[in-house]
């Protein structure tokens, strides 16, 4: 292993034997030289570990590292992966998704060119069974740069998944950890902790990542403890931001982020539980008003702001109004009815 590792790809693996080969094939054939693949088998009960070992034997020249551990959740697994990574840059992929063969190369070159801390690519949203591409997202930002000292609010327009992004290794190795990691929305919170030390972010136009979604995706019932642990974690993150020089300037962004994910996205997921939804929504509103009050008056959620700024989401600004006026429940009912009746897919 005399070659310098440029990019470490961290892949948390859990119960994905059906899709793992497709994912691994796209990783071992990366066009960039000096790629390291760190697979974290998070106590997966199926055959994932065998498949990974098979790949390690077959591609001896490809720097495949397998970390086999008991199930502790993806959050801890990622940190194990970061500790083990030896590359100059680190990226994450999910083991049921796959990437284009120039994924690492293009992201690496973009990050290198501008000496950015993070580079972000576009991605495809694809149906798992039919391979039908629903949408191509996060494109059209090419040439845009985010300087966290100048325009940190722009991070609101970046998707909050950890994949389709390449991070400078030292950024992740020095990032803060949470004592009690969240059980849901963990990607978004991990990313917020990364952003705290980030200085610059670059974008490339090409969609390089295939994000697989299931049409009949029933996200599973979210339990009350899960929500509570997640809400606590978000408050912890806010405290971390409050104690940091750069973070202090971004408190409004944190509040808006909390509103977007807890107020809108999480409540959308919770709305299938018709019996308790009214109470859940009320608790949610109280939580947001108590811990993250700035979302209410934030200009980043204004309709006029979203009309003037490319990348800001007009639909979100309108939904915020609906939420403020206590009409979110009614809105969701109408929204779901439209989706089901006309069989359309609305891109957010």
């Amino acid at each position, binding site marked *: 292993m005399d070659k310098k590792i440029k990019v470490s790809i961290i892949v948390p693996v859990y119960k994905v034997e059906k899709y793992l080969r497709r994912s691994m094939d796209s990783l071992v054939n990366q066009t960039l030289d000096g790629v390291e693949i760190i697979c974290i088998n998070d106590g997966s009960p199926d055959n994932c570990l065998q498949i990974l070992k098979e790949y390690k034997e077959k591609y001896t020249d490809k720097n495949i590292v397998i970390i086999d551990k008991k199930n502790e959740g993806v959050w801890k697994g990622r940190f194990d992966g970061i500790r083990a990574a030896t590359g100059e840059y680190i990226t994450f992929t999910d083991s049921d998704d796959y990437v284009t063969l120039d994924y690492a190369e293009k992201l690496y070159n973009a990050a290198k060119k501008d000496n950015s801390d993070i580079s972000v690519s576009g991605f495809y949203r694809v149906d798992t069974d039919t391979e039908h591409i629903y949408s191509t997202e996060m494109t059209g930002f090419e040439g845009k740069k985010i300087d966290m000292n100048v325009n940190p609010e722009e991070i609101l327009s970046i998707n909050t998944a950890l994949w389709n992004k390449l991070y400078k290794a030292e950024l992740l190795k020095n990032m803060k950890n949470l004592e009690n990691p969240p059980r849901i929305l963990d990607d978004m919170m991990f990313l917020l902790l990364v952003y705290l030390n980030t200085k610059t972010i670059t974008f490339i136009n090409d969609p390089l990542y295939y994000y697989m979604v299931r049409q009949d995706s029933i996200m599973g019932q979210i339990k009350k403890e899960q929500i509570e642990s997640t809400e606590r974690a978000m408050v912890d993150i806010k405290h971390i931001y409050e104690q940091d020089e750069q973070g202090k300037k971004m408190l409004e962004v944190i509040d808006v982020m909390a509103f977007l994910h807890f107020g809108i996205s999480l409540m959308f997921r919770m709305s299938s539980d018709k019996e308790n939804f009214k109470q859940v929504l009320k608790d949610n509103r109280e939580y947001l008003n108590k811990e993250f009050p700035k979302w209410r*008056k934030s200009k980043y959620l*204004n*309709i006029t702001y979203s009309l003037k700024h490319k990348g800001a989401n007009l639909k979100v600004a309108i939904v915020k*109004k609906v939420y*403020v*006026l206590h*009409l979110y429940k009614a809105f969701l009912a109408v929204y779901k009815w439209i989706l089901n009746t006309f069989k359309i897919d609305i891109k957010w």
Partner: protein
Amino acid sequence: MEKKSGFIWNTAGSFVYSLLNAILLIFCTRLNGTEIAGIFSISYATGCILNAIGDMGIRIYQVTDTNRKYSFSDYFFSRCLAVILMLAVAVIFVIASGYTNEKLFICFILILIRVIDNFSETFQAEFQLRR
């Protein structure tokens, strides 16, 4: 002194407003005859009924919100929703009634006057709050 003149103006305004319907109807009858006047009357009445939806009682909330819990844009947005709802009901009503084109047109114009009226309410309330 200011209060007194405000009171006079307010009363005068209400008086003129309540006379408006009668005056419009008189002009309409004199110029077009009784048949058109009949259409005018039924359309005007329809507009009044639908106005209840467009109005939504928003103004009462707005002028009493002295702590500014909600911003002007929130009120404006809710007014937009109310008016959209009002127009949707208007479209359904007009289609269901099977009016002739002429009748349909008059009816719609008079409903549109109500829409403008409703929007002006939102602004009036805002000025009332700021004063």
